[in-house]
């Protein structure tokens, strides 16, 4: 039985005096400090190299850029979280613009109620980003009840809205600055671009099971 197994495993583990295992006093090599401009540039460079489309906008005009992209890419539906920080700005922007826009589809019920639609007829999903990591070119996502986990995975396009002052030099820095250890979310993600694979003869192909396209709008 499982409980018996647990006891026996721990008995064996405790039988070894693991405290005598030598642990060398080695620190993780320090990472070079980098400034905000450097971080922004590095993030853009690395994300672009991994096929993410990066757009820099002013804080106030990001929805204009989004609207342009929507028209250019001809999205018909855009999944969003109405209660998310960007939700109200989105709906406001949509309300004020008269011309044809993708339908704003709210993720407002549990996935069980709309899995079919989510998997088959949503063109793009838009979320905020908690931050980003410059030295690896990844955005940080902490899904919330307002912006659930599958938003950044299932629709073929994922748009992430990131504030430039939330770009950290490294993952370690981000964890430290935001006190991850004290309050891990149910799911934390680093995302460095659209999904990809090189499993067949090392030929790189983008768009496997996760999004085929990734767009990051960086608000300065």
């Amino acid at each position, binding site marked *: 039985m*499982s409980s018996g197994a647990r006891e026996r495993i721990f008995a064996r583990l405790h039988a070894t005096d693991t405290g005598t295992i030598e642990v060398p006093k080695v620190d*993780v*090599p320090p990472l070079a400090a980098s400034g905000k401009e450097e971080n922004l540039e590095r993030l853009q460079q690395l994300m672009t190299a991994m096929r993410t489309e990066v757009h820099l906008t002013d804080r106030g005009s990001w929805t204009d850029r989004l609207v342009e992209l929507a028209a250019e890419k001809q999205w018909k539906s855009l999944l969003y979280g109405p209660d998310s920080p960007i939700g109200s700005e989105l709906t406001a922007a949509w309300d004020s613009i008269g011309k044809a826009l993708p339908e704003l589809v709210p993720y407002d019920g549990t996935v069980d109620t709309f899995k079919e639609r989510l998997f088959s007829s949503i063109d793009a999903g838009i979320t905020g980003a908690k931050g980003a990591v410059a030295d690896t070119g990844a955005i940080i996502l902490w899904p919330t009840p307002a912006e*659930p986990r599958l938003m950044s995975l299932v629709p073929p396009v994922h748009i992430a809205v990131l504030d430039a002052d939330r770009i950290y030099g490294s993952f370690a820095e981000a964890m430290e600055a935001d006190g991850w250890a004290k309050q891990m979310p149910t*799911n934390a993600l*680093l*995302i460095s671009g659209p999904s990809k694979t090189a499993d*067949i003869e090392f030929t790189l192909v983008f768009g*496997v*099971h996760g999004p085929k396209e990734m767009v990051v709008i960086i608000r300065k």
Partner: protein
Amino acid sequence: MATAPSFDFDGNVDRALADGQLRTNLRRAMDILVEKRRAVFDDTENLQALRSAGNAIKRRALSKLPQLLEKLEKNCEKNGIRVHWAEETQEANRIVLDIVRSHGVAEVVKGKSMVSEEMHLNRYLADHDVEALETDLGEFIIQLNGETPSHIIVPAIHKNKDEVADIFHEKIPDTPYTEDVEALTAIARKVLRKRFAAAKVGVSGVNFAVAETGTLLLVENEGNGRMCTTAPDVHVAVMGLEKVVEKLSDVPPLLRLLTGSATGQLITTYVNMITSPRKEAEKDGPKEVHLVILDNGRSRILADPELRQTLLCIRCGTCLNHCPVYLRIGGHAYGHVYPGPIGKILTPQMEGLDRAGVLALASSLCGACAEVCPVKIPIPSLIRRLRAESYAGGDKKAVPGGGCSRNLTETMIWKGWELVNLMPTANRLSLKAAGLLGGRAPKIGPLRKWTCTRTSPVFARESLHERTKKEGVKDE
């Protein structure tokens, strides 16, 4: 030898060496992976410091292993992740099956997991009428073809695109033959997307489990991992008990070492950190998350001060990529789940030296693996130790099957060697004898094996001992 290996290693080797296509594929693949790793770790000094740090982090985890596992369990349970313990693979399989059955389903979607291969989970589930669908592209390909993975990180590395085209055309209904890699990938995406949407249970491995926060960390590029761990109602994660690390801050250096060593990436597309199932206000994520922690000999390996270093492994696969033996025979020849250098030290310890000890002989001890191991496992030393264990006497064996290779012939050969090298007179005589034989030693035993590929070694008429004496080189 007195061992009776459970598999025909020599036969596997001969077949692999004769397979020109396999050897070409392997050479190309290993060159690519070696080069990618070199490119991403372009700062040598930093890399060495990082490796030392990785070694220290993993050692620290082993030095507190029972405490960390307790803490991991406590924090996971507090967050709603149900923790199960399994001593052996059958127990682990049973636990997974029970979870699947309790939800009344007959299929699961699966992310790549070496532990699940160790468990032979797919076969077990199939035997109990549950289909386990592999969703990582490489695993998906070989599953369609009824094969097992040949590499820890790139399981279908031995397959060409025309072979993949054949497999897809033949095994997936209504699929035309195409060698276009984008088209092949699109086919896999289409097939699997339906299954992700419908799946009730997803199974995955765990790259690191963080005790401090009760977090399961997974890395991947394709998105299938997240599909398996996020879309279904139930997520079952399986892990070896040595995968636990102490703190969240241990993750960034290990992550860099893992992705850099495995695929030459600064980071994978996704780093997925799971700390809880779907909480009440949340709209998606699995309603149940289970963690199955497997022992399968690891606690026994931990007991030996030298061999416990085997447990430092973070399953990056780079030792395989640098191994001149793996390069030539590929993963399947090893006959077990873990191939390459890590396989040579892990498998005999798990399966017993009597069944798999031959793997510890399949190494020239060149040290290429140890040079690149991100956590500095001294693999050649451990291989040597396992060889010694296979000849060990006495009752108490450090490794199952210890002493299985003991035989009179070898014992006498090495005893004879010892005497010759301890007694200068004997040494001189044997050198003289060799010199007299010249190149005409009879081709028996090892010499016969040598001379299949090489001319007989020629022994000098006068040894260096004699030459130095003649040339007046002082004795002391």
